[in-house]
C-alpha cells in the first residue's frame, strides 16, 4: 500500500516536473526581451529540478544513487540562480536596459 502511494506520488512529481520544464522552455522562447526570458528560464528551472529529482529519489529508494541525486539537486539549486545573477549582471552593466521598449524585439531581431 505504502509502495503504491510512493510510486504514484513520484510519478505525479515527475510529470509536474516535466510540465515545469516545458513551461520554462516555452517562456524562454516566446517572452519578449532578455530579462523576461531569463526570469522564465531560471524560476522554472529551480522548480523543475526540485520536482524531478524528488520524483526520481522516491523511485530509487534508499541507495547510493539517492545520495548522488541529492548532491546533484543541491548543486543545481546553487549554481542555477548564480548563473542567472551573473548573466543579468553582465547584461545590465553592458547597458542592456530592462525597458518596455524591448517588447517588439522578439519578432524583429532574429536576423542571424
Amino acid at each position, binding site marked *: 500500500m505504502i509502495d503504491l502511494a510512493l510510486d504514484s506520488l513520484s510519478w505525479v512529481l515527475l510529470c509536474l516536473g516535466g*510540465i515545469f520544464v516545458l513551461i520554462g522552455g516555452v517562456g524562454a522562447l516566446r517572452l519578449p526581451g532578455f530579462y523576461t*526570458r531569463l526570469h522564465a528560464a531560471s524560476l522554472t528551472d529551480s522548480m523543475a529540478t526540485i520536482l*524531478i529529482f524528488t520524483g526520481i529519489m522516491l523511485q530509487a529508494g534508499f541507495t547510493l*544513487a539517492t545520495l548522488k541525486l541529492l548532491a*546533484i539537486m543541491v*548543486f543545481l539549486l546553487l549554481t542555477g540562480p548564480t*548563473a542567472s545573477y551573473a548573466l543579468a549582471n553582465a*547584461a545590465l*552593466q553592458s547597458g542592456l536596459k530592462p525597458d518596455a521598449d524591448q517588447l517588439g524585439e522578439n519578432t524583429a531581431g532574429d536576423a542571424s
Partner: protein
Amino acid sequence: MYLVVSLAILVTMVLALVRALRGPTVYDRVLAVNMFGTKTVLLLSVIAFLLGRPDFLDLALAYALINLVGILAVLEFFQNNTRGTAEHEHD
C-alpha cells in the same frame, strides 16, 4: 513514465536551441547555453534510470558542478572586454 519526462526535456532542449540560434543579443545565447546545460543534467539523470544503471549518475554530477565555470568565464570575458562589441550583434 521516465520516457514522458525525458521527452519533455528533449522538447525543451529544442526550444532552448532555437533561442540560442535566434539571439537577438549575445546574452540570450548565453542564457540558452545555460538552460541547455541544466536540461542536459536532468536528461542524463533520467536516462541513467531509464537504462537501469543508476551508478552512472557521476556524469550528471560532473555537469552540475562544472556548468557554472563556463558561465563565469563568459561573465569575466564581458567584464574584461569593455570595448562593447559584444553587446549587440547586428547581423
